[in-house]
């Protein structure tokens, strides 16, 4: 399997405070990785740094995507390269409809003008798969959406933008049982040998449906253990105390 993302010795500070303290990570194409860790361990910091949020300052280390260093690339260039982040708390953008927003984003990322009819057809297919009412396409982005609807909208964008690496930041938080099933199905349908997933979650339920290949335990800014899916049960049973020592 060819390498998609490589993170080497990553140290990241936010407002002068070091959060990530030398993190290494390799994700190959087709793999699903999970980052587990207690609150404040640095999981969201890792995601924001991979995506290029300027609030998170890389003080040391490197990030490579498909062999090319992107450590200091702007956010939009990373998106164009094929990195997508599904936000834990998606922002609402009044004035731009969901359809218009995704169509323009797709056009910007792919560099190809999106013809309206084929685009709309695919959009409706994906919305149906996510059990989203098609009328949401004409509503302003996340404006007045419930927490669950916002999360579905993130997955809808993922399906439409077809990234190579998707960062799912607590995509299951705020979702009811049915919504977790629907979202998991959509992610599984999208996931194939050419793209990869990196997931943050505090719940094992969604992981039972997404079948992770690799599980990392992140404690105090460092990955302290990497293993297979059996690690999830171990953490569920014993918590993180054993790794904090």
């Amino acid at each position, binding site marked *: 399997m060819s390498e998609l993302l490589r993170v080497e010795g990553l140290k990241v500070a936010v407002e002068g405070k070091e959060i990530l303290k030398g993190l290494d990570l390799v994700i190959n194409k087709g793999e699903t990785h999970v980052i587990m860790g207690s609150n404040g361990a640095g999981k969201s910091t890792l995601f924001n740094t991979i*995506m*290029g*949020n*300027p*609030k998170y300052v890389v003080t040391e280390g490197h990030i490579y995507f498909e062999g090319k260093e992107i450590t200091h690339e*702007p*956010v*939009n260039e*990373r*998106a*164009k390269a094929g990195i*997508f*982040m599904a*936000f834990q708390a*998606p*922002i609402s*953008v*009044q*004035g*731009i409809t969901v359809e*218009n*927003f995704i*169509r*323009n*984003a797709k*056009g*910007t*990322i792919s560099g190809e*003008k999106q013809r309206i009819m084929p685009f709309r057809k695919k959009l409706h297919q994906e919305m149906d798969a996510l059990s989203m009412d098609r009328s949401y396409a004409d509503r*302003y982005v996340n404006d007045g959406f419930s927490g669950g609807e916002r999360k579905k909208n993130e997955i809808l*964008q993922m399906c439409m*933008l077809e990234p190579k690496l998707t960062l799912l930041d607590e995509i299951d938080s705020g979702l009811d049982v049915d919504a977790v099933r629907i979202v998991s199905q959509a992610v599984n349908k999208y996931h194939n040998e050419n793209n990869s997933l990196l997931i943050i979650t505090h719940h094992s339920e969604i992981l039972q449906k997404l079948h992770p290949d690799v599980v990392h335990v992140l404690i105090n800014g460092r990955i302290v253990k990497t293993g297979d899916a059996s690690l999830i049960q171990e953490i569920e049973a014993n918590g993180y105390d054993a790794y904090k020592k």
Partner: protein
Amino acid sequence: MMTKEQFNELPRPTFRWMKVNHLELDPLETQELQPVELAVRQEGSAQVETYEGNGLPDLGDFQGASREALAQAQKGGNINCRVTVPEGEEASVWITYTVTEEAPRLVGQLKLQAGKDSRLHVYELFDGDAENGLVNLLQYVDAGDGAQVTISKVQIHGEKVRHIDQRLTREGKEAQVKFVSAEVGGHQNLVYVRTDLDHDEAQFKSASMYLGSDDQLFDYSYWVPTKGCKTDTDILTTGALMGTSKKYFRGTIDFLRGGKKAVGNESDVCLLLNKGVHSISVPLLLCKEDDVVGNHASSSGQIDQDMLFYLMSRGFNEAGAQLIIVESNIRPVIDQLGDENLENRALQAVRTKMQFCHQKGNCHDKCTQRFPHLD
């Protein structure tokens, strides 16, 4: 020394040191008005006619944008027009006011008379540019009982025009008057609105957007005395400022004695895109009646960095993401204009301005390529 002209005086002045009681501008030199033929189109059963001189009734204590501007418009001018809709009828009227080098000054009145239970929608487009250009329009709205009057306005003048829009509205029982405005062009833009809600269950809604650049000035003044019971007032101004542009908002909802169960909301939102911009907001609620609900809000700030990050994570570059954020502020107003052509003109003007003005020095082609193609 030339005496300054005082515009948009607060109906109830506050401390002088706050410097918000009025705006002072140099008066424009006088020029003879040239004849103008207004572009007017209508649908429905409105009677539309032009006239000379003053065709308005006594305006009472209406002070206008300034004493001088009111007197000038009251004399009548070269753009006087009267629209009358009979009782129970419906009509739409489109009027274009174009400033040209041949006729750089447009001064006059627009009298809207909507009979009982009638419906009138007036669409106004202000465009064109000329050295020492001036538009001074006094709009008088007389909405009979149960009448609904809407004025949708798009102002995309060039950068040399002083634009003065003075409005006096008198509403009958259960009448509804709505103003939707997009102000993008002009050098100095002065909007003075006075709406008298003297009768029960009358409604006044106003939604305005602006986009300032260079040394543009936007000065909005609203005064809504509410005397009728269960009246409803809603005022919103929202926009963004670039360069060294300035915006003033003076909103006064005046709950007078007897106006029980009246509701009034006013809100001013301003996005500051540069350090040199200036936004002043005075959303006042005055109350002599205790059984009313009044809300006022004002917010101004720089671009939300979390929103910028979210948009850029979807592939938009910084300039494109900023455009989306500005549009997200103003689009809800533009969408209410109710005329596709006007909406497109306003949006096009906003996008052109963001491309040309925000990053001074970048050539147009370069800027255009960097922007998302938003429908």
